[in-house]
């Protein structure tokens, strides 16, 4: 069905600079462009796929998935190709789509774009789904501090992008909320704001170094690099903390799963599922920031390792939802 | 035409009806060659006649299109040097094939290393090399790096290499081109020794007197095919030359002096050090316009360093060089060439040619900065092609065209191209090492003629050569080099090769019996 051009008067945000308000009568084909790592990364990309597949089962559209090339230079072209093929809406997975998606949205003003993560967009036809990762990370940080016997916990981040630094910020605050004297060791896999999602070997070396320095709970925000963290944790018999999905379930290796204390859930699947059903129901979708309050983020208890901590964590959660605790998205150092 | 010395036994080597084509060129056509056991067999012919090609065929470096090769009466197929070596054939190449950065020992054993199990037996290698060295008076230093050796030393390494493998048939492609008479005598003594031991030697040379002296039989090649085989004692050099080229044997005759007062090149107290040792020490001389100054010396006594220092490739540790009154001790090679210096190196493959580039690009090399083919910023391929064609015509460089790779030319033709290139630039000073190395008798006399013409027009020449006839015939004054020093200054008019030889080996010293500069004017 040809997309209907809605009135280009945008409501909030004071005047969009590109694209139209899009109304979709019938969702027949949905495009999904992956972040680097592609399908099978056991975390970020796979979570989005899960949401897409759930919606697909219910709604019954055709889905086209495309992966970026090795150097990630073709993200914009992936979106264009999906748009040219008539997909509507089109999902771009990851903040790295930010600039490209806005550019492409201007070129295809009547196609609805959905971006997971990234800064706000000026385009009327771009809906950005963001998550309060710092809040979720706060809770697993608290869990880490409550579990740690050494008073030292670790963190392995993919890179120094704003998004990934947010994980670190929340985690540190959560840990310090429990134990102000706690030492949080941090390691970053890539010096710049890009990549680092696909280097389990480096993650493992970093994690081992932290374990050597006494860390006994390690959190990672590094896509499929995280496997390296879990391997190091399992080998040293300490804890790892998963990210994005419930990695206890998705890691696929029981030996590693036994060392996944909890995971910071970024309910991508639910968000993707919901935005697609919203389009079906209402014809359009808006940007959303999904916080603890909306269950956009959270923590998992699979494996039962933190069952006794749940009351304390729920208390922190409530305080955050109530605004008693404010979680900053930028790390102190 | 006679039969082989021992008609009963099958010939050690027999080539029958060999034809070898390169794209567009028939290098060998229906060639027949038969070498008996214990025979020294010479192969002569003008440049490009196909001698090296034939020898390479025999050494398995390429497979002929037609014809058969028999070793001791048995037809064999030689697909690689490995095969040839397997049949007891060894070769010393016209252009050496040594690993420069390896030691003498390593080079000699390469490919047939003495070993115990998989392990290399260095001690055994050393023992056998020294044995060969002593037996044939090769004077090898097993641990010297080949890179540091003079051309003659390298030649000896190549010979040792072949002997080391116990080759029954030795191929020597122009082995004497860079040897001084004493060394040639020594080599021939060695060959005689080998021959007595029943080895066969095939050797290529342009020096017809030499050929007659040492060979049992001589096969003449012309335009890729055999003209005939003659007994060495039954032929004169003149007859040989006629068989080869149909012209007379050239003589390096002296011409009237054209020496002027004007100093073109002046060298004072020049010294060069290598590895902490003075390889050139306190060398002083002058070259005037219209003068040829010859340098005689056994290889390895500093001639190379002298040439390279004059060219500016080697930085002297002391002394000055003046070109036309201007101090050029510290100027670059480029400037020196620009100021009218030309250069014919001792090793054309290493220092003068781009073997994989077409002839016209080789014409540009060294002259890329000057008109008409080169320039300050641009080069002009068309002009370079035209000039190359002219050089080829005037200097009788035999090649199918200017687009041919330099590496496809025969050795003598490469040499003619290099000389032609340098002379066409009309230099003021020519620094030439072995300018007629490897060129045939006809071309040699024409090159000599041209050098004389240029001298008459004012060219100042520094001539280094192992060919004493050439040195004596062309030079206006002769310096003898020994251990990096000028030990004698001789007048070529009253010196014979034999006398010169005694000076070169250090048997005679000083300036006894020579004239002074004043006398000669």
């Amino acid at each position, binding site marked *: 069905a040809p997309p209907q051009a809605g009135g280009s008067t945008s409501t909030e945000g004071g005047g969009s600079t590109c694209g139209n308000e899009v109304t979709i009568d019938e969702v027949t084909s949905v495009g999904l462009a992956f972040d680097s790592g*592609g399908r099978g990364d056991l975390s970020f990309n796979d979570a989005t796929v899960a949401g897409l597949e759930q919606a697909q089962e219910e709604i019954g559209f055709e889905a086209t998935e495309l992966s970026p090339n090795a*150097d*990630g*230079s*073709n993200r914009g072209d*992936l979106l*264009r*190709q999906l748009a*040219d093929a008539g997909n509507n809406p089109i999902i771009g997975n990851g*903040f*790295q789509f930010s*600039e490209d998606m806005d*550019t492409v949205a201007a070129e295809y003003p009547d196609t609805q774009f959905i971006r997971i993560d990234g800064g706000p967009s000026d385009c009327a036809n771009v809906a950005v789904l963001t998550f309060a990762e710092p809040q979720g990370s706060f809770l697993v940080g608290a869990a880490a501090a409550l579990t740690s016997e050494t008073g030292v916990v670790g963190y392995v981040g993919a890179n*120094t*992008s*704003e998004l990934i630094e947010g994980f670190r910020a929340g985690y540190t605050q959560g840990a310090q909320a429990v134990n102000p004297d706690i030492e949080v060791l941090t390691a970053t896999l*890539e*010096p710049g*704001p*890009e*990549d680092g999602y696909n280097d389990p070997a480096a993650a493992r070396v970093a994690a081992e170094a932290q374990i050597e320095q006494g860390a006994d709970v390690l959190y990672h925000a590094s896509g499929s690099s995280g496997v390296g963290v879990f391997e190091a944790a399992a080998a040293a018999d300490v804890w790892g903390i998963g990210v994005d999905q419930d990695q206890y379930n998705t890691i696929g290796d029981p030996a590693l799963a036994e060392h996944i204390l909890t995971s910071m859930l970024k309910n991508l699947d639910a968000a993707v599922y919901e935005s697609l059903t919203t389009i079906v129901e209402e014809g359009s979708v808006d940007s959303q920031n999904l916080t603890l309050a909306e269950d956009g983020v959270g923590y998992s208890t699979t494996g039962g390792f933190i069952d006794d901590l749940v009351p304390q964590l729920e208390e922190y959660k409530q305080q955050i939802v109530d605004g008693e605790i404010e979680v900053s998205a930028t790390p102190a150092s | 035409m006679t039969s082989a010395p021992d008609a009963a036994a099958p010939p050690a080597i027999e080539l029958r009806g060999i034809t070898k084509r390169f*794209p*567009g*060129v*028939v*290098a060998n056509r229906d060639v027949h060659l038969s070498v008996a056991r214990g025979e020294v067999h010479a192969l002569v012919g*003008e440049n*490009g006649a196909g001698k090296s090609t034939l020898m390479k065929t025999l050494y398995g470096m390429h497979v002929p299109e037609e014809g058969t090769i028999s070793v001791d009466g048995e037809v064999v197929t030689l697909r690689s040097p490995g095969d040839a070596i397997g049949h007891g054939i060894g070769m010393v190449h016209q252009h050496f094939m040594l690993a420069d950065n390896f030691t003498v020992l390593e080079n000699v054993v390469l490919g047939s290393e003495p070993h115990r199990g998989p392990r290399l037996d260095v001690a055994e290698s050393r023992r056998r090399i020294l044995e060969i060295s002593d037996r044939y008076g090769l004077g090898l230093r097993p641990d010297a790096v080949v890179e540091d050796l003079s051309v003659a030393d390298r030649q000896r390494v190549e010979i040792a290499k072949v002997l080391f493998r116990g080759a029954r048939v030795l191929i020597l492609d122009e082995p004497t081109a860079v040897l001084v008479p004493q060394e040639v005598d020594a080599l021939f003594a060695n060959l005689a020794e080998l021959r007595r031991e029943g080895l066969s030697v095939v050797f290529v040379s342009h020096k017809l007197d030499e050929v007659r002296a040492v060979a049992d039989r001589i096969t003449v090649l012309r*335009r*890729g095919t055999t003209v005939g085989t003659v007994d060495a004692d039954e032929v004169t050099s003149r007859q040989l030359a006629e068989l080869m080229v149909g012209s007379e044997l050239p003589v390096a005759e002296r011409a009237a002096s054209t020496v002027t007062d004007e100093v073109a090149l002046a060298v004072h107290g020049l010294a060069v050090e290598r590895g902490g040792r003075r390889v050139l020490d306190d060398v002083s001389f002058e070259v005037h316009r219209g003068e040829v100054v010859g340098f005689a010396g056994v290889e390895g006594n500093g001639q190379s360093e002298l040439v390279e220092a004059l060219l500016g*490739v080697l930085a002297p540790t002391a002394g000055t060089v003046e070109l036309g009154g201007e101090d050029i001790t510290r100027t670059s*090679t*480029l400037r020196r060439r*620009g100021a009218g210096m030309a250069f014919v190196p001792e090793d054309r493959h*290493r*220092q*003068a*040619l*781009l*073997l*994989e580039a077409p002839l016209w*690009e080789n014409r*540009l090399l*060294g002259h*890329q*900065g000057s008109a008409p083919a*080169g320039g*300050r*910023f*641009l*080069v002009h*391929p068309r002009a370079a*092609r035209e000039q190359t*064609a002219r050089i*080829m015509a005037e200097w009788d460089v*035999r090649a*199918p*065209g*200017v687009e*041919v790779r330099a590496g496809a030319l025969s050795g003598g033709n490469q040499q003619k191209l290099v000389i032609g290139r340098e002379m066409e630039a009309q230099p003021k000073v020519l620094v030439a090492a072995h300018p007629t190395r490897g060129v045939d008798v006809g071309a040699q006399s024409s090159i000599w003629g041209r050098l004389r013409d240029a001298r008459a027009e004012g060219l100042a020449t520094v001539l280094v050569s192992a060919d004493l006839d050439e040195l004596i015939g062309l030079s206006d004054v002769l310096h003898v080099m020994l251990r990096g020093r000028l030990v004698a200054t001789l007048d070529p008019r009253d010196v014979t090769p034999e006398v010169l030889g005694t000076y070169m080996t250090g048997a005679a010293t000083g300036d006894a019996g020579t004239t002074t500069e004043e006398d000669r004017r």
Partner: protein
Amino acid sequence: MTAVRRLGAALAPPAVAVLIALAITALLLTVLGVDALTALRALVDFGGSAQGQANQLRTLLTGAVPLFLAGVAVSVAFRMNLFNIGVEGQYRVAAVCAAYVGGELALPMPLHVLVIVLVAMLAGAAYAAVPAVLKVTRGVNEVITTIMLNSIAVGLAAYLVAGPFRDSTAGEGGNPTTRPLGESARLPGFQDSFLLLGLQPPTRPVTGFIVVAVVVGVVVALLVSRTRFGFELRASGANPTAAVASGIPAKAMVLRAMLLSGALAGLVGLPELLSEDYSYGTSFTSGLGFTGIAVALLGRNSVPGIAVAALLFSFLDRAGPSLETQGIPPSVSTIIQGTVVLTVVVVNEVAARLLARREDRRVRGRTEPAAVPAAAAQQGEGRA
């Protein structure tokens, strides 16, 4: 005439090669249990709609431009037997410097772009100067220094963009980038000009930097074949000893070749900077320098060959998503792309050899066999 023939000689082998490569790839695919026909169709598929086709054409061209520049940069050093693995680091450092200077400056249109291009070339050359100087003065192999400088470049660019070069006008938070270029530095592209060729204009313009790439290609081709510098470069590469004896300063040539290579490398990031991103930030493309090595080798160091090679790489890159759409997993599509290039390399090599041999024969065929006086050869030359 000869120019056309030479271009033909340079272009024919790759063309034949691509066809043969496709055949071999089809075989391999069948072995892997993939439907070869579908895969190949997807490979060469430019999409159904005219719009889609135009866009794919744009992607092809836009993708080829930086690869071409990288290939040319690598090839210049190759001519001297220098292996400039450092194009990768050079273009990264150049891009971050150019983006910073371009963002902070305000200049009228053509000047602004010019300054950015110059800064990029200078920065690239400066970064290439390090291995060059180390090689010339200390004899250090350029491969290892450039490998290490590549890794330093990653850190350096990240450090610069996060610190000294960061856009100070942007607030806290957000990923660090340099200040976006002003309008005067944004290169117009080709879009409506497609109409002139009777084609549908793509949704986005083809980068205007393609003009620079063409100019660079022509200049470098002329430089190498027609100038003294180019000749000296080739001679030094072919026979260093002879070059020195011919008055070519070997060390200076190493320096010059590396600086030129680095300056060209500096251009690699500019299409992206001037026509896409307008700043150096998170999504700046990396890895082009490495692909440039393959491009230069595939193009056999000749400028037209490199152009074809860059187009081939870009073509295959573009095909990745098409293959994925056809249900071919990314792993198999990587295999396909690699195999196509590999076969092209081999066939290209064989074809080039055959051609050289034919050319040889053509040249020689004009003259009589062996020992013919050169005068005849000269005539033969004149006749052609």
